[in-house]
């Protein structure tokens, strides 16, 4: 079984620290190799020269400082998982650099930390960012170090169930994952498809690939209630349509959830 390759930005922030720690705890379970990346974003002040060796030596200094910072963070955390020995350190725009690395490096998923906000605007802004709109792989957004190893596959009426199940198989195929299947709706009236149909479609597709959820259930209620009810899961796996700009109840649930969320596109 091949190891999954995850690109993980390493930064001097609480969110990045939580993401790294969570990932290392789950690395063995999920079979993940962690590739650290660090992007030094140059300030926009005018410099004495924009070209030539002065520019190159300035960038090289920034890269060196970035490398030292990454090594310091990785050493101080004493992480007990497989971390690729050569962190990638680049100078440039963060989104552009990460997108380029994700396209060229053939990563299975991108992992970054985010501290959940009571106001879900920050999450929606993140979903609308260039990085997320153009990302070629799923993203694991880590909010907290949840101890549970149980996953929840969450479906709603806008979910492309086939695509989500395909991604799930691609990432977790052959691994011993314990998961539940959940259909979320604010209420079960006038839902098309109805949550029961979603569960049945998801269960059938998963069954064809040899998976059987420990529990399949419908979760009804406001996004706040649903996010709270999903709080014990070690990871929430969901599908999002990047072409739609509309705020959906499920995106609100994901915005409010405390657990790490794996968003498949």
């Amino acid at each position: 079984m091949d190891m999954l390759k995850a690109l993980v930005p390493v930064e001097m922030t609480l969110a990045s620290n939580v993401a790294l720690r969570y990932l290392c705890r789950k690395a063995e379970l999920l079979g993940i190799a962690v590739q650290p990346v660090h992007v030094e974003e140059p300030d926009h002040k005018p410099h004495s020269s924009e070209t030539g060796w002065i520019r190159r030596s300035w960038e090289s200094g920034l890269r060196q400082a970035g490398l030292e910072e990454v090594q310091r963070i990785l050493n101080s955390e004493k992480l007990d998982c497989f971390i690729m020995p050569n962190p990638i350190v680049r100078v440039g725009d963060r989104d552009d650099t990460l997108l380029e690395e994700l396209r060229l490096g053939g990563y299975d998923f991108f992992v970054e930390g985010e501290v959940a906000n009571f106001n879900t605007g920050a999450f929606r802004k993140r979903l609308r960012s260039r990085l997320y709109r153009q990302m070629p792989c799923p993203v694991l957004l880590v909010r907290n170090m949840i101890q549970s190893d149980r996953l929840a596959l969450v479906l709603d009426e806008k979910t492309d169930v086939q695509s989500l199940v395909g991604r799930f198989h691609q990432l977790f195929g052959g691994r011993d994952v314990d998961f539940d299947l959940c259909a979320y709706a604010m209420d079960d009236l006038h839902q098309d498809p109805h949550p029961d149909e979603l569960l049945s479609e998801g269960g059938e597709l998963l069954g064809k690939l040899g998976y059987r959820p420990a529990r399949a259930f419908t979760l009804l209620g406001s996004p706040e209630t649903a996010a709270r009810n999903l709080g014990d899961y070690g990871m929430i796996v969901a599908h999002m349509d990047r072409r739609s700009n509309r705020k959906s109840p499920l995106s609100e649930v994901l915005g409010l959830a405390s657990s790490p969320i794996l968003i498949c596109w």
Partner: protein
Amino acid sequence: MKILVAVDENAYSRYAVRQAARLAANTWADVVMLAIEKNRSYIAEEELDPAHAHPRLRLLNRYRADFLDALGPGVDLYDGREDAPFVRREDKVLEQDLSGRKTFRLHLRGGDPVKAITAEAQAEGCDLVILGCGQHEGGWGRGSDVPGRVADAADCSVFVIREEPATSRVVCCLDHADISQESLELINQWVTIYAAGLEVVGVLKKGELREEVEAKMGEVLDYYLKRDVHALIRVVDEDSLETFIESGRKDDLMALWLRHKSPLQRLFHSKRVNALVNHASSSMLILR
């Protein structure tokens, strides 16, 4: 640790007494239990039996029994005898001393409840005031806002308990880096007592989490994780903070770290701390 439990005749005071006992049993705290009566200069006190002159002494004795019951078996910290006399002190406080291995005193003061509670907390050097509160209203007399005013005026931490708590989550709001070890330990106690989840919420200023607050959140997270307390982190915008706190549910305990120069203190100065504590659905812990 010294705890002041302020009581009145309402059911929420009984809950407050029980919770105070649980904390005292865990921390071996010194305890003062305070009841307040109206000043009545027309009564010739010396001519009456103390129990008749001061009906609230019976209330105190009933809560004392509840407190000792709630400590649980095997906790032998305080004196359980019932015949100790109430003695009038120089500062007009009526006192019954039931100290054993740790201090336990019943006090009766006269006057305005807010002034009596804050004066008692200051005079006794208490670390924490515990008092009960009605649901969606302050209690302590019709139209009263006593719990909120005490939370605002006291120099020490204040825990306002709403009816019988079935607390499943302790939510701690943090907007500055100057938090004491004692406050961290106090939260740890309530998380353990209630077997509750813990959420540490950082307050964003103009959409940004200030560097020192972020670093402190990391330290707080590490502190609890090392003690096997499962802590979650979250942020909230300063503008949404009041709504966030008010949205706390009955089974939440909302804790606010206040200090004199903290933006939280400014934001919730006087009337707002008062209103928040009196009108919230959750129990509130003001940490100082």
